[in-house]
């Protein structure tokens, strides 16, 4: 029931909003906020009775059995982490949108469709429903960028759409090949086949031979890597994040980038462990480049949204590093567990932290007439102590300050990576340093220093805006102090994947 509720409830909201002609945009906007927040309660209720041994929820419809097409959905602890994130960030972004004037009927409806499709992505266990949801996130996201974005939005939006689509095509072809060879597109069935080598065997007997499996894995890798993104597949991202309206950027970085991470965890690791195994040094190197390059590019950027966009590239680079390092042959149990737990935690934390940061930028833009360059401000802390304080918490969380959410995730990632490939950890530490540099520089340029005369009358957050940011900041602090809140959900899956990876010869 939970699954159907998650899939249909937001869609119902979207339909209602669509049918509600002549609604006051403000009322419609706030209704969409409330509507999209309801799944938090449903998920919380489900999580309360969460027994690690059994799935949280499942739903199954044999759609076209002769074609091996199953609408199979199942939520486990790993799903729960991402579902919670989706349930949290969507209303957060909608509230910011309603506040800064983007909100309304169409905006709310599109965001709700996006939410439903994301719920689908994070629960589907069969390629067909998973891929349908994956693709269907694109249309609302693209429309949101295109219709509410800045002057460069049409081009940036098209880029975002096409590049993701190109990746999707690679995945689609890959999975069709898998269906033809292995006779199933069910993720769990494929993981079982991968575990005892049947998948490789099936491919070596197929006309394509073993090389075909490599190509298939590479195609799926590509589709996921574009979404995260990994350098050099990131070039679409800064433009899309910068040109999208800030509330939409919150959705893009908070949720859509997590689809990629989730795909790596749910599909790449269990189904293609050999692919990751064999290329671990190269992939690790790619993740390192992503980390260091993302941080350096953030250092060089001056548009606040571009800085944060590159910082997202950098932060998700740590997730990828952990994932790829966990697949190194012969890695120890506690190191794999640490790396995987770190990647999951980091994905969740980044979703919350990055969306908070973009929310802060949205509020900043709203009161400066759209200004958002590093050098447009200066000294506004004396006028906006609360905005500065809340943004400061999110910024320091993103540089990994202990006590805030960013730290436990990054610490676990480094713990795992160091236990497997110490040199990788040492190089990745450079990313931490550069992140610190651009974060404190941002604080110095925007908030500290003498007050810029142009912003002498800038006003601080009002109560409504404080109420919008407060839950996110509370989550950031709560997870920083008690990361077990999230790890408690993902641990059973972590144990499973750790055992799984250790069995791969």
């Amino acid at each position: 029931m939970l699954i159907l509720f998650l899939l249909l409830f937001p869609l119902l909201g979207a339909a209602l909003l669509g049918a509600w002609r002549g609604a006051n945009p403000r009322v419609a906007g706030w209704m969409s906020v409330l509507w999209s927040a309801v799944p938090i309660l449903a998920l919380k209720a489900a999580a309360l009775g969460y027994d690690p041994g059994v799935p949280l929820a499942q739903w199954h419809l044999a759609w076209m059995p002769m074609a091996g097409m199953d609408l199979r959905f199942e939520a486990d602890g790993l799903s729960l982490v991402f579902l919670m994130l989706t349930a949290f960030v969507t209303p957060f972004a909608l509230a910011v949108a309603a506040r800064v004037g983007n909100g309304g009927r169409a905006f709310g409806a599109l965001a709700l469709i996006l939410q439903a499709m994301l719920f689908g992505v994070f629960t589907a266990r069969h390629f067909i429903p998973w891929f349908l949801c994956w693709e269907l996130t694109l249309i609302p996201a693209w429309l949101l960028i295109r219709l509410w974005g800045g002057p460069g939005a049409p081009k940036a939006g098209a880029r975002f759409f096409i590049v993701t689509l190109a990746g999707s095509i690679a995945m689609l072809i890959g999975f069709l090949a898998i269906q033809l060879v292995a006779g199933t597109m069910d993720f769990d069935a494929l993981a079982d086949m991968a575990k005892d080598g049947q998948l490789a065997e099936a491919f070596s007997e197929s006309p394509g031979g073993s090389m075909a499996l490599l190509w298939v894995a590479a195609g799926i890798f590509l589709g996921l890597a574009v979404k995260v993104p990994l350098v050099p597949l990131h070039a679409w991202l800064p433009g899309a994040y910068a040109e999208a309206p800030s509330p939409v950027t919150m959705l893009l970085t908070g949720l859509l980038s997590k689809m990629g991470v989730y795909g790596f965890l749910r599909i790449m690791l269990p189904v293609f462990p050999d692919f990751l195994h064999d290329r671990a040094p190269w992939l690790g190197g790619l993740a390192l480049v992503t980390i260091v390059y993302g941080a350096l590019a953030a250092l060089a950027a001056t548009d606040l949204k571009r800085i944060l966009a590159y910082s997202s590239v950098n932060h998700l680079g740590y997730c990828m590093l952990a994932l790829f390092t966990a697949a190194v042959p012969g890695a120890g149990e506690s190191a794999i567990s640490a790396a995987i737990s770190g990647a999951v935690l980091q994905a969740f934390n980044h979703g919350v932290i990055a969306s908070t940061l973009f929310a802060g930028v949205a509020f900043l833009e709203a009161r400066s007439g759209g200004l958002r360059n590093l050098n447009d401000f200066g000294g506004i802390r004396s006028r906006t102590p609360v905005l500065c304080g809340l943004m400061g918490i999110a910024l320091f969380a993103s540089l990994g300050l202990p006590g805030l959410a960013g730290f436990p995730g990054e610490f676990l990632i480094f713990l795992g990576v160091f236990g497997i490939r110490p040199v990788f950890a040492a190089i990745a530490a450079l990313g931490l340093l550069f992140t610190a540099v651009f974060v404190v520089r941002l604080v110095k340029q925007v908030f500290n220093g003498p007050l810029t005369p142009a912003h002498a009358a800038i006003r601080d957050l009002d109560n409504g805006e404080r109420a919008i940011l407060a839950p996110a900041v509370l989550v950031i602090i709560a997870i920083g102090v008690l990361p077990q809140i999230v790890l408690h959900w993902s641990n059973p899956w972590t144990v499973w994947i750790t055992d799984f990876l250790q069995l791969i010869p």
Partner: protein
Amino acid sequence: MADALPILLWLVPLLPFAAAGILAFLPDAAGRRAAPLAIGAIAASCVCAFLVFGTTLGGGHEAVAHRAFNFPWFTFGEVPLQLGLLLDPLGAAMAAMVTFVSAWIFVYSIGYMETDRRFGRFFGFLSLFAGAMLLLVLSNSLLLLFIAWELVGLASYLLIGFYFDKPAAAAAAQKAFITTRIGDLAFLLGMLWLYSDAGTLLFYDNGAGLLESDALASLAGITTGGGLAVSAAASLLLLVGAMGKSGQVPLHVWLPDAMEGPTPVSALIHAATMVAAGVFLVARMHPLFSVGAAPDEVAPALAATAWVGAATALFAAIVAVGQNDIKRILAYSTISQLGFMMVALGTGGMGAGMFHLIAHAFFKALLFLSAGSVIHGCRGEQDIRRMGGLVKEMPWTFLTYATGMMALAGFPFVFSGFWSKEAVLHSAEQWPGGHGPFLLAVAAALLTAFYMTRQALLVFFGRARKPGVLHPHESPASMLTPMFVLAAGTILLVVVGTPAWPWLESYLAGHPASLDFGALIRPESLKLIALSLALVTTGVGLGWKVFQREDSDSTLPDPIEHRTPGLWKALGAALYFDAFNNAVVIRLCALCGALAAALERFFFLPLLALGESLGAAFARITGEADHRALNRGFNGVCDALRSGASATSRRQSGRPQTYLRAIGIGMAALVFLYLWISW
């Protein structure tokens, strides 16, 4: 008592944290109420700290000496990660010192920050600072220590940049954060290394802890690159972390700038919190630093500590001679004294190093508070060339300042600084690793007396050189009281640290101290006491001879400047470390950023564009092919399909809806094909 102990121990850091948390929600306007809250919290914390300190008295055996209170923080996979608090002599002594000195600095701040608009915020940050430092010294886990370490860094960042609208303060805060962050990353790597080879980060855990014999032996047994044991390599990384926090060369550059914060913050940073953290880390990890070396051998990590400390002690003492800002001189003297502490720890003198740390905390806090009183009295003037003759206007401040100054310079017998420095030199002299650190430390001690004499002469003696009509005034009682208390502490600490009754050293080592006045007149003690006397006499005498003056002209060049302008310029520029960093390190960092930006613009974006046009070309070709195939194969049947496909082929506009339709149709076709084949 046994049950109350963990609660008391927890209260020590949590009370200031709680005060900081409450103050964070107080608006600036409600600031006045902040002081009683913050001071009440730190005072209560101080009482708790002394109570737990009391339970560690009386020595005892190993099991009682390290009482650990561990708890699980989180579990990843099936692996639990534990943190904990530790009650042992080292941490308890530090906690007692930190709470005591901090409490008086808090009291002093009431008067000093009286007129500040953000009075409440200030006390909130101070409380955070103290709480983090207390958590650091009481931590039983390297990870918890690291967490507290970073929070100390955050608090110092907030406080150094407290006057954030001053560009210099904003820049100093940024510099402090980033410079110490470099050290922090080395610390992080060292910690990861220890975890990956020892499997725990707890210090003491019933025999399974990092600092207990099993783990130490195994860490010393694994060799890594360069023939270094893991214990030594990780220790060296931790040392780099300590160098960042404790301002050791070359990571000292942030400390002189840190005085951009309000003076009570300088006192806190230089005495009780922040810089003490690095020295404390080395002291806490001493078992790890020293493991693996035979009794007469020198452990590599300790040798590095000794040499780094000695070089820093001398370097900062040299630079201090050429500074004109009253707080900047003190800042360099802090760096130099931290070097002494490192020398002591590196040469095996745990007791000496900790004694010097605690004594220094008292007299340096005293010196900063006195300097703050001077600045307060001179209405913001900080240049000692424009002071002079203040002994008449500010007699009480002079008295307390003189106490601190004589302790720092090492005036004999009644000042704790004399005995602690003597202990440091003693430890360095006994070191089997060579005489280098000892000789450097001796030179630094001589210079210390020299530059402190200069400062005292220029500030308090001679004639007033301050132009204008502003008359210096003595500070209010709320500022003077803490100064008297710390002055008394500076002198009273003598009791626990002389060779006659080396109580502190025995206490830290966990055995009872015995009173033995004979120790004072043993040849090796006498030799060093004589040396210390000679150093301070020479230093003060030279200083007096060179800097004594009776004019009232604030523009006259310094005597050293007069004789060797080149040397003076180099000293004024702190031997060009900042200049080097600005010219090379910061530029290199900017260059990397620019390189990334160029790569983005001239490589990745064109790559994306190329990919897009290749994709468009490919679509055109396949579209054309589809068009023909469909024409031939399903002519008439698939009109809709055909028009869709041909639309794709004609309109290569990059419009996503076109691509989407193509994908949908293609997918449908494939599914259909597959069903057809497999039926």
